[in-house]
């Protein structure tokens, strides 16, 4: 087995620092040396003889991948790639090598034990319009959920607030490894989390506005109009040499009304998609549609919007009387219509819970079982997600110049039986441990 090689590889200072009792000392030492980055990759790594799933240029049955300085520096057929001198060689014979998986909708660092509200920072429920809530202010980088997901090959994720607000805040884009939040957050305010549907009507009951979809849409339209007016007034005041007091809520919306960053628009029902897309088009929002699990009747229309779509959870229940696979087949049906898709791990029903984010590759596998071409499924949890959130040039495929986020597994990444053997993030062999492996090992003695 290749594990011995991998274990050697994992024996880098970084993993020792994490796995050891001397962790605090190591951290302190490293802090003194490298205040912003705990450990950068120092020795090149050559992963040889692996089956490479490159995403962008097919499968290389016997390939070699070079990781240097935290980036992919070469990829190709074994024998045709020059191995740098001094490189650590990882023989990946019999293993499948693929880019780290990217979860398009998580709540990593916003929750720990779901039922325990004292550690939930999922959504600010004081108002429906909360664009000035920044996930980076709550992101708990040391959450136990991250190592658990990482062990199954998830290396990056979007973290979004929960969906109870019409506009619930702004997302971050993270990598699932690093010394602290500064190293793990790759992008702040990368997208606006917007939602339309039943969930957002809760506070209205019958006593306060908004309590209907009419109210929700009117409130959103008024908010966008007010923001536009605010923008104009700020510009005019600035021209006059005045320093107007900023309104944080409106300021937060400006980049989205200018179409500079994507709005992730969570919606489940077909008719709701039609309603909210009309509003989005009115204000020229750069939309990524999210969820869409009961939109089977408007698939052509969705394709005509020419916007990317995150599908999740594909495990949502069909409506009574619908065929059992009406939701399972959505990724295939949308991809068939030329829609760029991502798949999220969100468990069926309820708010997304990243405790099950480790099952992301299996959700993509289910989409394959129900008609999505395999390559599309793999893209839907790697490159497509990276592209949707502005990281397409850095992540999501095995290409030269991209960040060395790479996974080695003993088989097909989308199959539940497959065991991930090693994860690299920025070229560092991540310790293959979590709170759960520690419990396992403790009780296996």
């Amino acid at each position, binding site marked *: 087995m290749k594990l011995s090689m991998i274990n050697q590889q994992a024996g880098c200072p970084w993993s020792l620092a994490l796995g050891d009792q001397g962790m605090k000392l190591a951290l302190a030492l490293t802090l003194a040396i490298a205040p912003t980055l705990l450990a950068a990759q120092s020795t090149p790594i050559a992963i040889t003889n692996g089956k490479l799933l490159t995403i962008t240029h097919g499968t290389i049955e016997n390939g070699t991948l070079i990781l240097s300085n935290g980036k992919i520096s070469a990829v190709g057929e074994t024998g045709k790639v020059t191995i740098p001198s001094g490189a650590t060689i990882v023989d990946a014979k019999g293993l499948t090598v693929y880019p780290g998986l990217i979860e398009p909708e998580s709540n990593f660092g916003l929750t720990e034990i779901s039922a325990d509200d004292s550690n939930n920072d999922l959504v600010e429920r004081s108002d429906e319009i909360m664009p000035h809530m920044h996930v980076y202010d709550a992101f708990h980088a040391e959450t136990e959920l991250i190592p658990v997901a990482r062990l199954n090959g998830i290396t990056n994720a979007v973290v979004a607030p929960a969906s109870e607000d019409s506009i619930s805040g702004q997302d971050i884009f993270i990598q699932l490894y690093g010394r602290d939040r500064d190293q793990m957050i790759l992008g702040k305010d990368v997208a606006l989390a917007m939602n339309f549907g039943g969930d957002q009507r809760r506070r209205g009951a019958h006593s306060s506005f908004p309590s209907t979809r009419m109210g929700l849409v009117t409130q959103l339209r008024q908010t966008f109009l007010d923001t536009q007016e605010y923008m104009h007034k700020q510009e005019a005041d600035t021209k006059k040499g005045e320093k107007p007091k900023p309104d944080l809520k409106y300021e937060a919306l400006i980049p989205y009304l200018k179409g500079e960053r994507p709005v992730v628009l969570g919606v489940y029902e077909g008719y709701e998609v039609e309603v909210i897309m009309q509003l989005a088009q009115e204000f020229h929002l750069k939309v990524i549609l999210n969820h869409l699990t009961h939109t089977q009747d408007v698939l052509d229309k969705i394709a005509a919007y020419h916007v990317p779509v995150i599908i999740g959870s594909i495990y949502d229940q*069909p409506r009574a009387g619908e065929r*059992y696979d009406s939701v399972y087949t959505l990724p295939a049906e949308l991809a068939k219509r030329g829609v760029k898709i991502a798949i999220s791990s969100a468990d069926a029903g309820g708010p997304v819970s990243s405790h099950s984010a480790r099952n992301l590759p299996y959700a993509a596998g289910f989409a*394959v079982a129900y008609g999505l071409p395999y390559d599309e499924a793999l893209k839907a949890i790697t490159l497509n997600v990276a592209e949707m959130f502005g990281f397409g040039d850095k992540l999501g495929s095995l290409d030269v110049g991209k960040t060395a986020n790479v996974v080695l597994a003993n088989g097909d990444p989308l199959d539940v039986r497959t*065991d991930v053997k090693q994860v690299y993030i920025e070229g560092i062999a991540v310790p293959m441990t979590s709170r759960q492996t520690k419990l396992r090992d403790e009780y296996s003695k």
Partner: protein
Amino acid sequence: MHPHRSAQFLTCAILFASATIASQAQSAAPQMPATDLVIKNATVMTASHGTIQSGSVWIHAGKIAGVGATVSAPASAVVIDATGLWLTPGIIDPHSHSALDSDVNEATSPVTPSMHMVDAFDNRQSDLYYALAGGVTTELLLHGSANMIGGQAVVIKNKFGLDRDQMIFPNAPGSIKFASGENPKRVYGSRDQLPSTRMGNFEVMRMAFEDAKHYMADWDAYDAKVKKGDKDATAPKRDLKLEALADVLRGKLYVQIHCYRADEFLTEEAIAKEYGYKIRAFHHALEMYKVADKIAPTETAIATFSDWWGYKDEAWDAIPWNAVMSMRAGVRVALKSDSDDHIRRLYAEAGKMIHYGGATEDEAIRMITLNPAWIIGVDDQTGSLDVGKDADLVLWNRDPLSTYARAQKVWIDGDLFFDNSLPGLGTTHFHGVMHDGGGFGSDDQEDGQ
């Protein structure tokens, strides 16, 4: 001491009077297909005696009549060539709340043993159909976990489209649901009632069993008098609650306990010993890996999730290796859904056990067939591909332990109930209006809040 079969039959006869009548009616007008059926050239995963690479199964009169590389069926048999396909026993879910229209908890008292889930069973609810399409042929429909001692379960065969009474598993032993831990103490504690702690939880149980012992003694005394010919003996007042608890103490009901923490398994076993009943299975059992060596000798099984964790405090130490570690320590392990979502893909949940801990294919398949059958007490009738057992089978397009498997055909008692190649729903017996049951999902929902 396992419950006596005859006693179980008696219990069933009382509890499921309507079911008993129905099954008699059924035998008068059998649903069985008249012809013999042979499925040949399949990869046959028997669950009891390994995998036959290119094997055949012969179905006769609703039962399995032959299993092997070849079978000696009559020439008149209908033959399905299953080259490239997989055949398994029907999947058995030992922890479901399907088709109860959200009537899962009678959360008005922590002790409600005389509730019968069969009284809430609605045979037209959609979750049954989705489970069927995922290869589920038998389910144990349990009371929720709001109460320390909940109601009595009903075992169904997922014959979606048949009459309500025809879906009830004939002669299955009775089971009763207990709970422990966070849910009961939260449900009653939030109302400032007993129990609001684990101390209160267990004391509620002891008090109930003390009452039941007293009740049993009164009846035993009366029965003794009657036996002696005492015509003046006065029968004690019948109390449905105490009667049900007495049935637990008499070993007439399988005890199925919702329980998470290592310490609570040990406490439950101690109380069971104190009052002289056996625990059939711990459900959820996410910390079993910590004490599996101590539970194995009790023969109590577990019905657990593959990889759920972190949704509540008592699920914080859950690890996905729990099932395999517990199995290696000698505990009988089943996977269960407790979810209208996961019930549709228990086969893939079993596949995860190859990943988490290195279960063999045989072991993984048993976790969703023969082992849950044992927990329910129907392992002599279904749960494996063996001659004489009910012809409950699923034909798959891919290895059923992979992500990619889809059930192609599902037979129950030899009758085809789902055929993926059919247009529309793919159901063969269902017509009319499907009911939306509102679904059920996870432990959190089953606590009656």
